[in-house]
């Protein structure tokens, strides 16, 4: 062991404190609450007494089964839609390829709870579909297939981008070599390209699974009418409706974390075992083949998917936002900018909500950017003792669904013995967003630090820079482009985050998402739609513009 005369770098200490506050505290309190049901009264009596009741509950098994079923169905449907598109995109010359990429990125950027509102407007009785075509699909919408369908539209881009990128890289690098050594195009695909692409495909499917079991908006909006309860909605019910059942919520949260953690670890294992996509630079488009007679059927498929996933919900939301009254229907006389005027006039608190969310988004981006950079530094570059613990704390949020973070924050900061607490202030929302979104900056900064040779920092130290000066002058500027991209993503997602906002937002504080959600519950659908449209503009356009300026379109997946 090296003698511990080297002092621990201040950046490592800041990272440790920040990770403890943002990640460890909420998670710890969920575990404590699950074990000690009387924790809320400051008592540690009757440990484990709530487990038997909760875990033996037939409803819990049913909800866990529903959660798994939902995850698996979304994965299967996403794969069915995305893989053929990705193969066509990667191996053949599809006209307008870049345009299709952008169109498929948009549904990933639209939060599913907003898309689902557009779908309700379209498919419900007397909805847009009925007004235009004379029939409605309400039965389909408020059913398990409907939930799966709408969630798939949000998550298939993950598979599409992962698979098409891997196939492109593998196809141009390794399949060409197989061709040189005598394989026909088909044989090269089956023997080389496909096996090499499997890890990328498996990892993206696991990510879709994790997204699906954490999703709140879609099951909450559609599932209750279908009698379809999943873990997320059940946890929400236990913390927000009488009778409040905190031990039950904590135990359900642990079950959900276990599922999510399993999916995440499996994904990491798949990628660490065999991953070939990161090894090369730019994929070469020159080796692609012509579609021939398949050109028009393929284009039609791309167009159909893009319209259903992107065009239709956006049009429905825009139509709702521009309708003076929803009952007035799709006629010219009913259209007008009244809802946008109401929002900009702030008669309904919309501007306050917008301001709250935008400032929280900026704050979350700054905090997670700084904390993510320092944590990644501590894990990748420092030799500080205990960095294994920091590594675990940076990975843990990947397996913490938003609802679980919210429950953990309530449990931690609503303890009666606390002298000061961020609970019931907007600060609790900031803590929630930071915990949920920390994995993004950590991932980007970790990748960037791995690219930086150790000697760049060593050289700065030898030439007279203290640890903090070396971090600020050398390391931070070098990771800045990656970190900036991650912070933009944090901003975009935090400004529209739904589930934690619904659960922990203090009385009188509304965010963009709680505003939209409440307008819909109160029947002011038009206002909600107008707000949703503005949100999509802000949170989709901004990151897209900046990322395309930086030339890394699609790489945020």
């Amino acid at each position, binding site marked *: 062991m090296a*003698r511990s005369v080297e002092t621990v770098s201040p950046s490592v200490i800041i990272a440790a404190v920040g990770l403890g506050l943002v990640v460890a505290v909420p998670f710890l309190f969920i575990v404590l609450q699950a074990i000690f049901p009387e924790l809320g009264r400051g008592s540690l009596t009757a440990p484990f007494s709530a487990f038997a009741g909760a875990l033996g509950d037939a409803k819990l098994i049913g909800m866990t089964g529903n959660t798994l079923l939902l995850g698996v169905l979304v994965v299967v449907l996403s794969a069915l839609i995305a893989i053929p598109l990705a193969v066509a995109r990667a191996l053949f010359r599809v006209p307008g390829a870049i345009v299709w990429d952008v169109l498929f990125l948009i549904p990933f950027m639209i939060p599913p709870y907003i898309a689902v509102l557009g779908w309700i407007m379209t498919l419900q009785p007397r909805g847009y579909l009925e007004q235009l075509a004379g029939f409605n699909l309400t039965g389909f919408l408020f059913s398990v297939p409907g939930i799966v369908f709408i969630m798939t539209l949000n998550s298939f881009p993950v598979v599409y981008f992962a698979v098409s990128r891997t196939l492109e890289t593998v196809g141009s690098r390794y399949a060409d070599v197989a061709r040189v050594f005598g394989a026909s195009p088909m044989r090269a695909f089956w023997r080389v390209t496909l096996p090499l692409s499997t890890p990328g495909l498996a990892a993206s499917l696991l990510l879709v699974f994790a997204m699906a079991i954490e999703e709140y908006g879609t099951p909450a909006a559609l599932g209750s009418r279908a009698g379809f309860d999943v873990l997320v909605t059940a946890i929400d019910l236990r913390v927000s409706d009488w009778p409040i059942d905190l031990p039950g919520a904590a135990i359900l949260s642990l079950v959900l974390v276990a599922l999510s953690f399993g999916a995440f670890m499996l994904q990491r294992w798949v990628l660490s075992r065999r991953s070939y996509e990161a090894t090369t630079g730019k994929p070469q488009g020159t080796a692609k083949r012509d579609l021939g007679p398949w050109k028009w059927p393929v284009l039609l498929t791309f167009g159909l998917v893009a319209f259903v996933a992107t065009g239709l919900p956006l049009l429905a939301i825009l139509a709702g936002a521009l309708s003076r009254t929803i009952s007035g229907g799709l006629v010219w006389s009913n259209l007008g900018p009244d809802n946008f005027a109401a929002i900009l006039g702030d008669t309904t608190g919309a501007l306050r909500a917008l301001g709250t969310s935008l400032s929280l988004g900026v704050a979350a981006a700054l905090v997670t950017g700084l904390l993510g950079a320092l944590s990644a530094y501590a894990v990748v570059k420092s030799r500080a003792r205990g960095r294994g613990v920091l590594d675990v704390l940076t990975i843990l949020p990947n397996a913490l669904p938003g609802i679980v973070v919210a429950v953990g924050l309530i449990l931690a900061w609503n303890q009666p013995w606390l002298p000061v607490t961020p609970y019931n202030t907007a600060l609790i929302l900031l803590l929630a967003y930071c915990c949920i979104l920390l994995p993004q900056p950590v991932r980007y900064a970790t990748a960037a630090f791995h690219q930086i040779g150790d000697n760049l920092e060593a050289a700065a130290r*030898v*030439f*007279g820079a*203290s640890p903090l000066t070396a971090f600020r002058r050398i390391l931070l*500027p070098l990771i800045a482009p990656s970190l900036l991209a991650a912070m933009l993503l944090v901003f975009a997602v935090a400004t529209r985050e739904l589930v934690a906002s619904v659960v922990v937002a203090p009385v009188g504080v509304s965010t963009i998402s709680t505003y939209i959600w409440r307008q819909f519950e109160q029947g002011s659908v038009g206002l909600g739609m107008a707000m949703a449209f503005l949100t999509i503009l802000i949170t989709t356009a901004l990151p897209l513009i900046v990322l395309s300026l930086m030339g890394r379109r699609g790489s945020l997946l």
Partner: protein
Amino acid sequence: MRGEWNSEQAISAQNLTLSYSGIQILRGIDVALPAGQTLALLGPSGCGKTTLLRLVAGLLAPTTGDISINGQMVAGPGVFVPPEKRQLGMVFQDYALWPHLTVAGNVAFPLEMAGIGRAEREARVTAALDRVGLGAMAARSPAALSGGQQQRVAIARAIVGEPRIVLFDEPLSNLDRELRETMVAELGALIRGLGLTAIYVTHDQSEALTLADQVAVMEAGQIAQLATPEHLVEQPASPKVAEFLRLGAILRLVRDAQGWSCAGRALGPLGGPEVALADVLVTPRALRVTEIGQAALTGEVLAAQFRDTGYTVTVRLDGAAEPGRAIRTVQISSDTRMRTGERIGLQILPERLRWFPARADVPM
């Protein structure tokens, strides 16, 4: 400045060890380097030479032992001076130029850290870049330079702060051979011209022998021999050192009543120590080509490489192969070209052999 520091050791290390997760990387290192001298750390990769350099730089802390720079202890029991307080210059194997700064920005960094004002900084950066012949490149990005130019920038950065001690970590190993030979000469002139004390890590014995006043040959975390270049070549301390310096072939000889023999072929009385078993270093200068009929050693020409001074000929010796050694070959120099596969005889010049008594327990 050189005379001022000659009286004491610029760098010294006593009983230095470093272990990492239970693995001993350095064991019992003792080094003392007078001011104004150059010490080369020479050894194969993984021998611990770069680790030793990083200990001196303060990028690692030793497990036991202590290091002093100019008489002040910088690492030892309860003492650790961080790298930024040791006032060293350093040149890295991968250059370690900061890609987000210009050439001038890289070179100015040490001065900036020392709090030197802008005007003086600019003058000294220009002077340092001129010294390495890159004055015109100041505004460029390091990425736009060739490998050799990048290393010159790294050298300018190492000397701009006028440190008394500069550490070189395999500075030329990423360059091609021709450039390496030019740069060795330039570096030697620079080190002498500035009166620097230098530690120079390399795996290339010709670099070490050219540049250094003292060479430490390292092997498995220890210093196998610390000596001047002349002493090292004349009197290598062990067969391993001789082999690493590529001084010649090591042959194992057995003594009986008639004298020495090698792999069953009698070589006659060659002198040598009074032991039953010995390793002997056979340099090209210790062999002479003779008639095949009367030669003690015979062999077959494996390869002949032309150099401007003649041919370097590799010969495979006849005789039973020794266990553990694939082929026994020796090298000789020759003025005439020899064909591959030609059989020749070799005569040993006993006075040019160097003997290493082998331990008796080692089987042949």
